[in-house]
Structure formats: C-alpha cells, structure tokens
C-alpha cells in the first residue's frame, strides 16, 4: 500500500498480573493477544466487541498510556511505544482521545475556556485572546454556542459535555482521534447527533478516527473498516459493509444476530446465538470461542490463531477455519 498509515500496531500483546491471596496464586491475564491493524488517513477504523474484550486496552496501548507486553506501536511510520516520555510528549498533541464518561473527562473546577485554552497555550497553538477566539470557533464547530465558554462542566448536559470533549480533542489539530465508546453513555437520540457530528467533522477536516464501541449500529454507521474483537483477539476484520453483509466468523454473526432489527425482511432469517458467558479459560490452544460456538468441532481444540484473508477478498480477514473452507 503506498500510503503511510497514520497509526499502526503490530502483534500487540498486553498481560496483567492478577495477584491472589499469596504469590503462588498470582497468574497472568492476557487482555490483548496479538492484535495488528493499520489506520489510514481520512478513514474511520472501528473496533467492536463486548465488554472486557480488550478494545479499550488496545486504545490505551495505542495512546501509549500503558506499555505493551509485546508488540509495537507506530505513528506515521515512526515507532513510538519505546520512546522515552520526554520525547513522546511532543507527538502527543497529534493523537487525541475522547472517553466514554464525559462527566469525568472535564475538570469540574475549570471553565470550558480554560479547559480548551490551557493545552493550546502549552503546546504553543494559541495564547490569550487568540486562544479565546479559537475556543469560540471550536465550540461552534461542535455545535455549541460560543457564549458557553464561560460555563463550568456541570452546567452542561451529557451530550453537550461530549461535544466539549470533542472540541478539546480537536483543539490540538490532531492527526488521529481515538474515540473510546464516545456515545455509549448517551441517550439514543443524542447518540445519533454525536455520530453525525463526528462524521461531519471528518468530512470537513479529513480527520482520522479510531472508533471503539459495543453498539454495532453506531460502529457500522461511522466506520469504513471494522475489527471485531473477542477475548483480546481480532477474530474478524474487514470493510464495514462486507463484514456486515457477509460475516465470516461465528462470533460476528452472533453479534449481528443479537442486535434487534426493525427490518421485516430480516425477521425470518435464521439466527445463531452463543451459549453461556465470556469464559476466561477456554482449553489451552483451543479457539477462544470454543465453549460458546454453535459450530465448534474437534479441530477447533487445536487452533492456530492466525488471521487470513477470505478466499478472493484480500481486505476481509478472519481467524475461523470454517470460514476459509466456505
């Protein structure tokens, strides 16, 4: 591919030590296993998966808020995960993050003007009057009244606060914005507004997003490409529409089938559903979905955990043997 990706992760792994009552019982928990993907300029890359599948950990690793156990993080072709923080600091304004909980994303004791202005001043983007003007611009860009710059965070509604968070992320002219479940905590009607705002901003400014969510509809709506994660692994990834129309992995199918549909034509369709809960301990070497998959076979017990393209579709990859066989 000729274009350099804005961000890339290669074979990212993250393990956490779980310490029990005594040291003998401590074990490691793999939150992220061998995750690789690239994000290209101007696109939205979506990551979807149920709670605890490691999607937020991937975001934190990409943002270099945590150190990966294994693997590499690249930003515009430059490796950043092993840089000392002192040098990485100058790259940081170029990748920004928006969190799920907008309530704790803004310092309750500061006015919006200061929340937006202080980072701009520190990074030398705008100071004083100029920063104030820029803050007003940013507020109107995200659909808020510029007069609101003197308000405190608790004087906003949840949706408005999320808009302020987006304005804050935009303020440093980032190359990439990581959106960690930005709409999950909002009302459905507000969710749609925020998603539309994100899309409009992307069109206007050619922004690049990493969009993380557990609501399939939202992720599908904004993303160009999607990766589905399950238990720390990417089980399937591909162009958004291909993945939705022809899910290859049983987990993706189950996720799609679990979403209620208003489309009458879809009613009669056969659905698959998973058994049980996400299990921490599938048998060693087995497919992580082994316990829950309706198609589980003996060969799934010895599983190679590599993602390969589907026959004839180089962009659509999955790790399920069954899919390759068709």
């Amino acid at each position: 591919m000729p274009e350099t990706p804005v961000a890339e992760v290669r074979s990212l792994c993250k393990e956490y030590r779980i310490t029990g009552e005594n040291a003998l019982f401590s074990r490691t928990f793999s939150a992220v296993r061998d995750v690789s993907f690239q994000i290209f300029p101007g696109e939205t890359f979506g990551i979807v998966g149920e709670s605890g599948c490691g999607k937020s950990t991937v975001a934190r690793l990409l943002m270099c808020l945590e150190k990966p156990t294994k693997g590499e993080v690249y930003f515009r072709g430059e490796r950043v995960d092993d840089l000392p923080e002192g040098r990485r600091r100058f790259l940081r304004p170029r990748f920004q993050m928006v969190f799920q909980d907008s309530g704790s994303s803004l310092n309750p004791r500061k006015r919006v003007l200061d929340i937006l202005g202080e980072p701009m001043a520190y990074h030398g983007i705008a100071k004083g009057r100029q920063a104030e003007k820029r803050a007003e611009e940013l507020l109107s860009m995200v659909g808020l009244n510029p007069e609101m710059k003197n308000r405190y965070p608790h004087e906003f509604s949840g949706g408005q606060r999320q808009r302020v968070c987006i304005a804050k992320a935009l303020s440093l002219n980032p190359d990439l914005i990581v959106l960690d479940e930005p709409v999950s905590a909002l009302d459905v009607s507000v969710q749609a507004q925020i998603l539309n705002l994100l899309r409009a901003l992307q069109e206007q400014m050619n922004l690049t997003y990493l969009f993380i969510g557990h609501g399939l509809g939202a992720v599908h709506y904004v993303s160009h490409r999607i990766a589905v994660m399950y238990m720390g692994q990417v089980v399937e990834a591909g162009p958004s529409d291909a993945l939705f129309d022809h899910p290859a992995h049983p987990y993706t199918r189950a996720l799609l089938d679990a979403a209620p549909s208003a489309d009458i034509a879809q009613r009669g369709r056969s659905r698959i559903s998973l058994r049980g809960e996400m299990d921490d301990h599938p048998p060693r070497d087995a497919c992580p979905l082994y316990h829950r998959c309706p198609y589980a076979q003996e060969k799934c017990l010895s599983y190679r955990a590599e993602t390969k393209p589907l026959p004839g579709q180089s962009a659509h990859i999955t790790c399920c043997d069954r899919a390759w066989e068709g």
Partner: protein
Amino acid sequence: MRKKDLSGKYGPLLRRFVRHKAAVVCLFVLTALILMALLAPWITPYEPTKPTGAFSQPPTAEHILGTDKIGRDMFSRILYGMRVSLLVGLLATLISTLIGVALGLVSGYFGGAIDKAIMGFTDMVMSFPYILLVLVAAAIFQPGMWSIVLILGFVDWPGVARLVRGNVLSLRETNFVKNDLASGMPGRYILFSEILPNTIAPVLVYATSVFALSILDEAALSFLGMGVQKPTPSLGNILQGAESLSVLTDKPWLWVPAGTVIVLLVVCINFVGDALRDALDPRNAEG
C-alpha cells in the same frame, strides 16, 4: 426570607451553609471572639502582664472577671490569651497542612517506592502516642510559643497527608487527568492545575478540625507547663490556676471563663467545619 440575595457564583454554597442553623450561630460567636481577641487593646484598659488590682479578687465593676493570684486583670488576660491561642492554632494548622498537602501530593502522584516510604513514615508518626511525643519534644526544645507552633505543626500533618494522597489517587484515575497525559501536558500542570484545586475543599474542611485540635493541644501543653510560658497569657496557662483544689472550688472566676472560651472556640470551629464540608460538596442538592 432573603433567598434572592444568595445568588451569583457562591450563592449555592452560601445557601447550603445557611441550612446549618447551629453553624451560622457558631460563625457569629467565632467572629465575635476573634474580633475581641484582635481588638483587645481597645476593649480592655489593663495590661495583661501587670498587676493592677488586689490578689485573687472576685469580679467587680473595674475587673469584670476578677483578678488572678498576683492581681492581673483576668478579662484582659483572657483576651490576650485568646490571641496567643488562636495564633498558635492558626500557625500550627498552616504548617501541618502545608506539610501534609506536599507529602500527600508527592506520595499519591508518584506512587511506587516514594509512596511506600512516605506512607510508612506517616504511619510511624501517627502511631506514636501523640501527647507523649509532644511532651518529649517540648521538654527537649525550649518551651515557648514558637516551639509549640513548630511541634504541633510537625505532629499534626499525617491526617492531611493521607487525605490528600487518597484524593490524588482517585483524581489520577479521572479521564481529565488521563486526557492530560494523553495530550502530553507536563506533570506540574497536572499536579498543580488539575489535581490540587480539586483537593482544596476537603483539605480546608480537615484544616478546621486541625485548627480546633491545635487550640486544645496548646491548652493542654500550656496547662502542663510545657507550652506558652508565663507571664505571656494563653488560654492554657490561665487554666494552670485550676491546678490547686482551693481555686477549683472557691475561686471559679480564675478558670471558668478561660475554660468556657476554649470550649466555645473548639465547638464553634468544629460546627463551622461541618457546615463547610456540606456546603463545599456540590452533590448536596439544594433544599
């Protein structure tokens, strides 16, 4: 009533404070006492350290609270003693709060070995029998007002340090601090502009109780002769007169007023602190 006047930035805060009736009364009492102490030279015609009447004289028109064993006016001694006690309390609180905030911030923010070391030291200081530590320190150093200030200041900080550390630990997990880290904001900005302003309120509330406690400790030390030295009056060393049984039973004017003032100060400060805690917590919905 005058609810309309309580608007503006501090309106809700004031409204929540006013809901504590006892605290409002206490605030008035406290203000009156502090004003009396500050304006002592204009209120009383007598020097607190010079004999101006008969020995151990019961209250009269000239000496409204009587005179002490060597003929000094009790009223002016109490006023001037209040000055000393308040000053000791204030300075000791200031010192201990500064130490506590500094150690708590460092401990909570940097964590790891630094945190362990500081918290270990804090636990050590906390586990010493408090009054004994103060007594030993007072015995080693020259007793006097300034050494009391320093001793109390250097002994009272562990509570503040723990409080601040706990706050920093929880604030570090908030998204706005994570966002600062992700934006490459420097540590000093995160520490002093984001975390510190959010810990001021609880520290302020805690400081009021340290203030009350310091006044009590000063009184206890001075009563034991390890604190403020005569002839300088303090509320504690005025009470020293009550060491003898005859004074205790027959000459109540030598100890009842000073004791009452201490009780009033401590009770009022605590009540105001309580109301302040509720007022500063915005989660207390407006009634």
